[in-house]
Every structure is written in structure tokens, then in C-alpha cells.
């Protein structure tokens, strides 16, 4: 049984330099930084066009100390497959291959390649950092933008459709490991990466990352808002190990606590939700309550 990492036992080596072009208070920066600690030095990264491309630096300066291949938007997972293929021909079974893509690059344009790689069982870890929109290009809506959110191209009515459940889509590929994490719970993310490294096939991580300009909040509240998403039961931390679903960390504790913060508080904290009607909020609250009733029942 793997020991839980604490702040004090977290590896101190940093794999990112300061002075990146990431926005002030970027949630991705936190998830990425801690995620790389878990991945370690013997890792190759793949990154499509996204906020991370910018964070990683413009030519000729790189902010990450690990090897990284930038690729076209739709081909992240295929590139991971390609790197793996070469490593195999070189007899290298130890280097970790890790793809980091945004929600747009995963749930929309990148879904085909990701599904293909997962179906082939290609042995890499795929991280989708979900800031719930195409943030790098100025906050346009993506498949994982939540219903009601105002974005640059859903400016008055907000997104009309539900958030796409990408972890569920990936779980349907019979993967050995699927995880839902959050930048607000970096130690949970860290330990899940360590746990799954030696599991076979494609491993999928979905990381909720708060985004100050995209979501509309003062950057200092980034972690608080990430936490609220979990404490309201709106976004859950879990893992699916060989098909078996299990809540983890703060979400797991909520099952014991049996008390969720009203989701209205999560919406009130971000200006992108300012047009949510009371009716819609009630709808969403009901959906959350129903989901958690299911969790409570399973626990009994």
C-alpha cells in the first residue's frame, strides 16, 4: 500500500523554471509543477497547442527541464504512440511518456487520436488539464465547458450544453487506470501518478484547473475555488482502477461527512456564471444531490 505523500515528503526537485508566460495565478501551473515531480526526470512530454505551450516557453527558451515534443492540435496521443514506438525499438522500457493536453485538445479535436491510442493499449499517461474552455485563444467554449458558462463565443446565453464527461468516455476503453484530480489537491494528483506508472496501457488523468481570466475571479482565490468545486460535490476526485470506481481524498471524505456546500457558492465566486438562473442552479443542485445519494448508498 503506497504511503500518502505529504507536503514535507513531496520531492523538492523542481522541473519548471520561474518566469513563465503563464497567467498570474494559473491553476495549470500548479498541477503541472507537482505532476512533473511525480513523473520525474526520466520522462518525455508531448504538448499540443494550449496554455501549456505558452507556459513551456517560446523558442529558443524552454521553461521545462524535461524533453518535450510540440505537436499539432489533433495528434497529441498519436505522438505519444510514436515516441513509445521508438523507445521500444531502442529497448527502453523505463522512460515514462506523458502527454499534457488541454480540455479542447482532448475532448474535442484530440478525442479521435486519444481513443485510438487507448484502444491500442499504448503505454503512456495522458493528462487532460481541464480549465473548461479554449483559454489560450481567449476563452472560447469547449466540450468540457460547464452548462451556463459565459465564454467569448457564448457571450450572452452561456453554454447551452452539458459538460462532456471525458473520464467516462475513457473508462469505456477498459483502461487500467482513469483518474479525476484537481489542481487544488496536488498531493492527490501526485500520488495517483506514482500509483499508475507501472500499470499497463494508456492511463488517463482529468485535472480540474481553475483559470483566473477564463472563469472570472481574483487570482488569489484559485485554490479556494478549486476546493469549492470539490466540496460542493460538483467536481469529484476519483480513480477507476481496472473498472472499479472509487472516490479519493476530499471527495472520499465527503461521503463520510454527508454534507455538501451548496453549489450556488461555487457559481457565485466566478463571473462566468453570472447569468445562471435560479432554476438552472436548482436543477444542477438536484443533479448533484442525486449523484451523491448514489455514492452514499454504495457506501452503506
Amino acid at each position, binding site marked *: 500500500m503506497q504511503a500518502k505523500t505529504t507536503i514535507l515528503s513531496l520531492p523538492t526537485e523542481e522541473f519548471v523554471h520561474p518566469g513563465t508566460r503563464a497567467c498570474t495565478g494559473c491553476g495549470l501551473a500548479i498541477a503541472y509543477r507537482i505532476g512533473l515531480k511525480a513523473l520525474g526526470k526520466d520522462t518525455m512530454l508531448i504538448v499540443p497547442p494550449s496554455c501549456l505551450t505558452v507556459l513551456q516557453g517560446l523558442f529558443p527558451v524552454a521553461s*521545462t527541464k524535461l524533453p518535450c515534443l510540440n505537436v499539432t492540435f489533433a495528434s497529441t496521443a*498519436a505522438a505519444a504512440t510514436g515516441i513509445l514506438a521508438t523507445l521500444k525499438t531502442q529497448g527502453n522500457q523505463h522512460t515514462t511518456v506523458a502527454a499534457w493536453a488541454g480540455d479542447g485538445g482532448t475532448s474535442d479535436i484530440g478525442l479521435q*487520436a486519444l481513443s485510438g491510442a487507448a484502444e491500442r493499449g499504448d503505454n503512456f499517461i495522458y493528462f487532460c488539464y481541464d480549465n473548461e474552455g479554449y483559454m489560450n485563444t481567449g476563452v472560447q467554449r469547449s466540450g468540457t465547458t460547464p452548462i451556463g458558462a459565459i465564454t467569448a463565443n457564448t457571450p450572452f446565453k452561456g453554454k447551452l450544453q452539458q459538460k462532456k464527461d471525458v473520464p467516462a468516455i475513457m473508462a469505456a476503453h477498459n483502461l487500467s487506470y482513469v483518474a479525476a484530480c484537481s489542481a487544488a489537491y496536488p498531493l492527490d494528483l501526485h500520488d495517483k501518478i506514482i500509483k499508475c506508472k507501472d500499470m499497463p496501457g494508456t492511463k488517463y488523468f482529468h485535472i480540474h484547473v481553475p483559470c483566473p481570466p477564463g472563469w472570472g475571479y481574483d487570482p488569489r482565490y484559485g485554490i479556494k475555488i478549486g476546493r469549492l468545486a470539490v466540496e460542493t460535490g460538483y467536481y469529484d476526485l476519483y480513480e477507476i482502477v481496472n473498472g472499479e470506481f472509487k472516490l479519493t481524498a476530499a471527495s472520499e471524505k465527503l461521503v463520510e461527512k454527508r454534507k455538501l456546500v451548496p453549489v450556488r457558492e461555487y457559481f457565485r465566486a466566478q463571473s462566468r456564471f453570472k447569468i445562471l438562473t435560479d432554476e438552472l442552479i436548482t436543477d444542477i443542485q438536484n443533479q448533484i444531490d442525486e449523484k451523491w445519494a448514489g455514492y452514499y448508498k454504495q457506501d452503506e
Partner: protein
Amino acid sequence: MHIIENGNVAAALGVKLCRAAVIAAYPITPQTPVTERLSEYVEAGEMKAEYIHVESEHSALAVCIAASSTGARTFTATSSNGLLYMHEQVQWAAGARLPIVMCVVNRAISAPWNVWNDQQDSISQRDTGWIQMYCADHQQIIDSVIKAYWLAEKVSIPIMVCYDGYILSHTYMPFDVPDQELVDTFLPPFQPDYALNPEEPANLNTVTLPDVRMDVNGKLAHGYMEIRYLLHEDLRKTPAVAADAEKRFAEIFGRGGDPYLEPYRCDDADYVAVGLGSITYQLRVSVDVLRKEGINVGVMGVRFYRPFPDTAIAKALKGKKGVIVFEKALSYGYEGALVSDLKSALYEHLAGTGHLPLVQNFIAGIGGREIRTDDLTQNFRAAIHSRIAKEPVWIGLKL
């Protein structure tokens, strides 16, 4: 070893002999037998390679790009819409300076759907910075694949080896399959200048700026414009390296000749037909017929289409009375692709010298429309007697 096989098998054998390490391809008619044969070699253990069953052509080239960046010799093949689908990656591979070799089994593009042969697919990629070689028979297919790996890895530019779908891919011809030992002598293992690895980390192909910028060592690094210029410059230098490849190939395998052109009865010809691929062999029949009628004609195949061998072409056609270009692709709304490039080369080198030939353009075989040799001969003859039209003439059109 001489065998009788189809063009697709010739290509697969070439790839096998070159010891490609990563193969990623998606099925599309008429390319499928190439990759099927390669999968047989891999599964039977005859070839030590990773064979990836990708879910699209875009991913096929994505896998090759990533694999090549990490240090493996890679291969893919496609046709028609498959090539169009991977166009974004085609541009990427050239800009990333990766020595990928891809066979394009020429097929008409859509809309509307058509699975038969013309050359619009690879021609539509002529500006991407890939080197393009066109084959007229099966020996050229297998030999070109082998030459392509050597050349690509020497100049670090990807290469398309193109051959006509069905006409070459599915027909049977005798050809020589070189010994593995000879190929190993000609083509040593792939040694890239840089392969992505954790010991020497780098960030590849990230965003470049319009202007130059300091790198982490305090040195001024190239901007996007310089990187793109260097691709162009290296392509301009490629014909000389291709000549080296041809020479080396001839030394080891005992066959070869002109790296760029394949002339037939051109030396004393007054009129020369020019084309890409198998149509040029068909035109040899027309040449023989017209020669018997007392007209001095010849036909010249262009083996190397990109970078365009303008100097060699101008030299070969200097002083000819007429050049008649027969081709299976065009720049829609204007004229054939080859004829445009050819006219530009002739003008560049021969304008004002008094040796500039007249040029006539014929478009044939679009969407696999049968090209009857009689039609070729008739149109060739007519073009000689009077320049038919300033516009390209479509042979075999049935409006």
C-alpha cells in the same frame, strides 16, 4: 534476386530492406497492399519494426513525426484523401526537418469520390518542402525507396516516393530485389543530429517569433523566417546531394543514371514530350511511332519533381523546337502543374538566348480515364504540326 511482383510489393520490399523501425499507416485504396505486406513481414519476424495500427492518416504521420524526432527510421504510405487529411502533418514534417519517407500511391482526389489514378494528390503537396520523386516502373519504385532514405537522412528533409495507383501499384513486372548486405552498405543506420531524450532535454517545435531572440546561452537564435529559409536553402542544395546518391547507388548496385531526368531518344529530338511517372513509358510507344513517320521526337521523364531540377531541365530542352507536357494534375483554373514549373525554368534559363522552345500542355487520365496510346500519339503529332492552343488541352474528354 529477380522477381515478378506488383508495385506495392516493390515498395514494401524497399522499406524492408531499409530496415525501417517504425511503420504507421492507415488503409486507403490503392495503398493498402503496401502496408499489409509490411505487417506480414513484421508479424512473421522478418522485419524488426514497430507496426502501429493508427486510427487515421493524420495520426499515421503524427506517429512518424514523433518516432523520427526520437531517433527512429520511419515509414508511412497513403493516397488521395488520406494524403489530404495528413496535409497539416506533411507541412509539419518538413518544417521539423525530419527524414521521413512516405510512398504516395497516386490516386485522384475528391470531391467527387474516385479511386483510380491521377497525380493530383501528390502534386497538391508540391509546395510543402518535401522532396518528391516519381517512378515509372517497379525497379524505380524499390530503388527510389532505398535512395530516398539515404537522401532524406543526409539532408534532413522528408521525401515522397510517388507511383501511379493501379497502373504501377497493382500490375506485375519483373524487377531486381537487391541483397540486404548491399543495402546495408549503401544505407547505414539512422544517426540524427538530435533525438529527443531525457539526458539532453530540449523543447522541439514550440512557438517561434517573427524576429530573432536570445537563447539561454546568450546567443542570438534564428527566428521563424530563418528556420523556413534554411529549409528552402537546403532544398536548393538537394539536387547535388541527389546526384551523390545516384552515383553511390550505381557504384553499389550497378544501375542508375541521371538523378533527375529519364530521357528517351531526346538527344537529336526536335520535339520532346515531358511527363511524370508511368505515362512517360506509354509515350515511348508514341515516340517510336512518330520517329517512323520521320519526325524527330523524344520523351523525358522527370524523376525528381521537388526540388524542381530547373537547371537540368533547361539544359536538356535548350534549343528544342517544342516541348509537349502530358500530365495528370493541374492547378485548377490555370494550367498543369508540371508545365508551369517547366515554363518557369525554361524562361529563367533560356529567355533572350534564342533557344527558348514553345510549350504545349495536355491534361490526361484525370480520375483514371483511360489514356489510349493512340490518343497520345495523335495529340503529340498535332502539337508538333501546329501549337494547338495556349490553354491546356484535356485528352479523352467526353463532354
